[in-house]
Structure formats: structure tokens, C-alpha cells
């Protein structure tokens, strides 16, 4: 059973009176435990596709099913809960809250659970350990390099043990060295922790780190 199933997925945007079709009638299966990269030129809709998988957006038609749950049919309240439990999302611009420390940033998703303070602290420590930043727990984002910030973001995405990890251009703002570190981390997460990863990128180098590469161009998805 694939972890993520997209069936006849379409997304259109309305700009003034014009209807722009981003993509139409896409089918996709993402197997559990896979590391998939989704590539395509800018404007091709790959980020939009990712948002649909994450339940951040609704398709114009078609279905999105993640781990057996029909995400595309959920109401906004249910989606929020679902996202908290099943999705780890990493942004291109890290999007850490600047006024919280690394540990506090990583803790955020856990605040939505019933874990006690001690349990939360434990999970945070583990997550930061996995990304190799245990010693930076009390630092603020401004005190971290770009690569370190992104690693904190990944720790935040992992801390609640999500079903799927989604990344939108994770290395887009990083230099070559940091980018390589991140990709290595992702590979480890996939190999050792069996995390299912779907990564959007326009960097062929980043795509190489993944096990499967898909292309989205002019609304057509190809392997």
C-alpha cells in the first residue's frame, strides 16, 4: 500500500477573470519508506503539489490519500489536527520563530500533544541529537548559521514522529557545504529511521540524494 496516493489530482487558480491550470489529472503513488525528489522548472506547480499532500491547500478536483486518510476531504479543523500528527514540513527559508530558542522551536509541534513537560523535553533532546545540534539547544536562530537553522527546522519536522516528511526546496538558501550536510542528514533519516520523504527541489544535485526522482513540467508528471 503506498503511503501517499494522488488520484486524478487537479489544481486551478483564479487570477482576476482568468483561470490558470497548474496541473490536471495527476496520479502518483509514494511508497512507504521511500525518498522521492520532485523536480521541475519554477512555476511548474511542484510546491503546490506538496502543499496539497500536506493538507495546506485543497485540490480543485481529485483525491489525496495519506496513510489511508483522505486528506482532500477533511475540514480545516481536522486538517490542522491531522497535520500536527502526520506531517513534518521543512521550508526553504527555515521559518524558525526568531524569538524562540532552537529547543523551543523544536518543541512547538509537541505543544499540540498531551505529553508532559518532561516528556516533551526528552523528545526535543532526541530530535536535536539526531540532527547533531544538541549543543545549540539554547541558541536563538540569529545565533545559528543557515545550515544549522535548517537542521533545527528538520528537527522540528521530526520531533512528533510524523508519517511523512515534506520538504520545499530545503537547500535553496544554503551554500554547497551546508546543502551537502542537509542532504546527508535526509538520507540518514530515510535509511536508519525509515522516514518517508518527499522533497521538492530544482537543484539536480539535491535530487541525486533521493532514491526516486520525478519531474513535473507543464502539468505532466513523469518519472
Amino acid at each position: 500500500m503506498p503511503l501517499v496516493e494522488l488520484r486524478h489530482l487537479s489544481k486551478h487558480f483564479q487570477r482576476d477573470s482568468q483561470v490558470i491550470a497548474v496541473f490536471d489529472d495527476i496520479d502518483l503513488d509514494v511508497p512507504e519508506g521511500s525518498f522521492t525528489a520532485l523536480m521541475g522548472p519554477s512555476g511548474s506547480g511542484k510546491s503546490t503539489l506538496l502543499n496539497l499532500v500536506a493538507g495546506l491547500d485543497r485540490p480543485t478536483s481529485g483525491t489525496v490519500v495519506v496513510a489511508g486518510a483522505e486528506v482532500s476531504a477533511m475540514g480545516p479543523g481536522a486538517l490542522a489536527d491531522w497535520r500536527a500528527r502526520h506531517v513534518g514540513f521543512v521550508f526553504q527559508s527555515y521559518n524558525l520563530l526568531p524569538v524562540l530558542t532552537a529547543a523551543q522551536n523544536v518543541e512547538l509541534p509537541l505543544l499540540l500533544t498531551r505529553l508532559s513537560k518532561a516528556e516533551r523535553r526528552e523528545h526535543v533532546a532526541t530530535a536535536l541529537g539526531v540532527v547533531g545540534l544538541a549543543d545549540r539547544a539554547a541558541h536563538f536562530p540569529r545565533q545559528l548559521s543557515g545550515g544549522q537553522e535548517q537542521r533545527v527546522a528538520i528537527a522540528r519536522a521530526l520531533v512528533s514522529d510524523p508519517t511523512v516528511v515534506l520538504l520545499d526546496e530545503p537547500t535553496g538558501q544554503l551554500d554547497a557545504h551546508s546543502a551537502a550536510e542537509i542532504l546527508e542528514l535526509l538520507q540518514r533519516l530515510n535509511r536508519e529511521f525509515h522516514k518517508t520523504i518527499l522533497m521538492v527541489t530544482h537543484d539536480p544535485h539535491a535530487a541525486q540524494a533521493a532514491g526516486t526522482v520525478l519531474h513535473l513540467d507543464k502539468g505532466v508528471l513523469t518519472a
Partner: protein
Amino acid sequence: MKIPLVYNLRSALRRPVSSAMTALGVAFVVGVFIAMLALAHGFRMALVKTGSPDNVLVLRKGTDSELASGISRNEANIIAALPEIATGPDGQPLVSPEVFVPVSLEAAGGGGDRLVVARGVTAQAFAVRRTIRIVEGRRFAPGQDEVIIGTAIAPRLAHSAVGDSIRFGGRAWLVAGHFSAGGSVFESEVWGENEQLMPVLRGEFFQVVAFRLKSPGLFPEVRAALDQDPRLQVDAHRESEFYAAQSAALQTILSFLAVFITSIMAIGAIFGALNTMYAAVASRTGEIGVLLTLGFKPRSVMASFLAESVAIALVGGLVGCLVAIPINGVVTSTTNWSSFSMLAFHFLVTPGILAAGLLFAAVMGLVGGYFPARRASRMPVVQALR
């Protein structure tokens, strides 16, 4: 509240100047609010403290002010014979016939003349009006042209020091002492002996007869008895109610002023808070997007920004309270229109007033933060992340 408060507090500190200015705006409003309430409260307290429920004031029928009243000696004697009147330790009934007249006295600092109440009393007055204490000097001696002056009014009059002489009614009067009266209106009066003052002032009439009841519950009988007595043309008033009623008019004016002024100021402060919070939300759309992505509900986001707004406002409220507290005890004066004479009283800041000020601040924060917070919560996730 799922989103940690520390996020909001620190975010507010990230825009220190903006947050501080908003807080300061609230502080000003709260400060003025507290000051005006303290003014009204102090005035009211001076009058409320003056009366006790077991004292009765008898005035001429139809008047509700000592000023316009006139009771003859004959009537005073009839009143003094009432069985419900308590007796003092010396066996004498606690009855005090008094002359009450506003006289023109020279104000301190060359400010012209002021009208001040001169009250002619007998020795019994000190027993009936329990709160009188001589704080400096002594009581006026019987048969002499001597007076004592209340502590609230003494600093505002010329030649009012103990041992000095003040002039009124065409005569000079030695200031034998100063007296306090538990913060009541008597502290704004000049007291002298009945027999000395009567001939100089208004002649052979008293303005009021005050007496102590054996028990407060006897008032209705006393009032009926005096009303039905054909020899008398008088009305009885419970002392506590009498003075409380006097404060009503000025109270209304002060309350109206307080509400009018602070409401308008509050609207201005709320506008300030609105601006600040809208700007905060606008500059943190990315953070809002993250929170929503992570699964925090929109209402948590709304609560979060509301809390931020309230926190800023409360800080302002606190500052406003601190700034206003020193006004407590400051003495000011105005005219008690019921007696047409000067009444000195203090600003009175109570914990209740401070609490009201803080509550007011919180409300301003709530109102000012509501729409921006709602906007933050309504932001579509995808748009926020862009």
C-alpha cells in the same frame, strides 16, 4: 493557550519602541482615569465620613441645607426634650444646637476672600460629633472671642496659625487651636462658641440642632414625632444620609467628566494599539504560516495575538497606576454648593480604583487587539507562507 506566551512577549519586545509607545498611550489614559476617580472618591468620602447613622440633624421644615435653615431657641429646647436622645457620661442629653454661617475670610497667599463655614457650637457638640480632636493648641475658651480651625482649611487661610487672629463679622477672633475630624467636612470649618457667634452673625436663630439617638433604629419615630409636633416647623434628617446627598451633584459632574474624558482618550489609545498589532501581524505572516502548518488551530493563533495585545496594554496600565498613586492624599478644594462654602478634601486612591484602572487597560488591549488577532487567525496558510 497552546501557543506559548513567551513567543508573544518576546515578539512584543522585538519591536520595543512600537510596543512601548502603545503601552505608554494606555498608561496615560489609565493615569487620568485613576486621577479623576480618586478626585470624585475623595470628595465623596469627605462627605460620607461626616455623618453617622445614629446622629440626627434637625433643620427648618422645607430646607435641605443648613444654610437656609432657622430654628428658634424655643424650638431648640422642645427638640432637646425628646426621650429618644442619648445621654452622655455626665448625664446631659447629647444635643448640640448650632449656628451655621458661611463667612468671608482672607485666603492665604493674597488670593482674595473665600467663604468658609463658621459653626457656633456648645461643649456638647464635641460629644455629639464624635470625631473632633484638637491637634494643636486648645479648645476655645467660653465667653471669649476665640475660635478653632479645621486642619483641612487652616493652610488655605491667612492668619490661621494657632495664636494668630482672624477677622470676620467685624471682629477679631483668636485662633486658639486646630482640630481634625476624621477626614470629614468639619475639617473645612471654623468653630466658635454659639453665644459668641450668634450676636455677630445672624441673630437669635440656630441653623441646626444635632443630637445622638439612643439607637439608630429610633430614627423613624423621632422623625414622626418632630413632624407632628404643632409647636415645631422642622424636619429631621439622618446625619449620614444628609451629607451623602450633598455630594450627589458634584459627584455626577465629576463622574461625567471622568467618563467623557477617559472614553475619548481610550479610543485614541485603542487606535494606537490597533496600528501596532496590525503591523505586528503583517510583519509576522511567515511565523503565522508556520504555526498553522504545524497544526496550531486558527483560534490558538487568535488567542495568542490577543494575549500579546493585552500584555502590552497591561504593562501600560501598570505604569499608569504607578504614576497616579502619588496623587493619593494631595489636598484640593472646591465649593460645596449646598453650604456655598469651601470644602477641602484629598484625592483618594483605593485598591479598587487601581484594579479598575488595570481592568480598563486590559479591555483596551482586548479591543485594540481583536481585529488584528482575528486577521492573523484567518490568514490562509498558503498565502502566509509565501
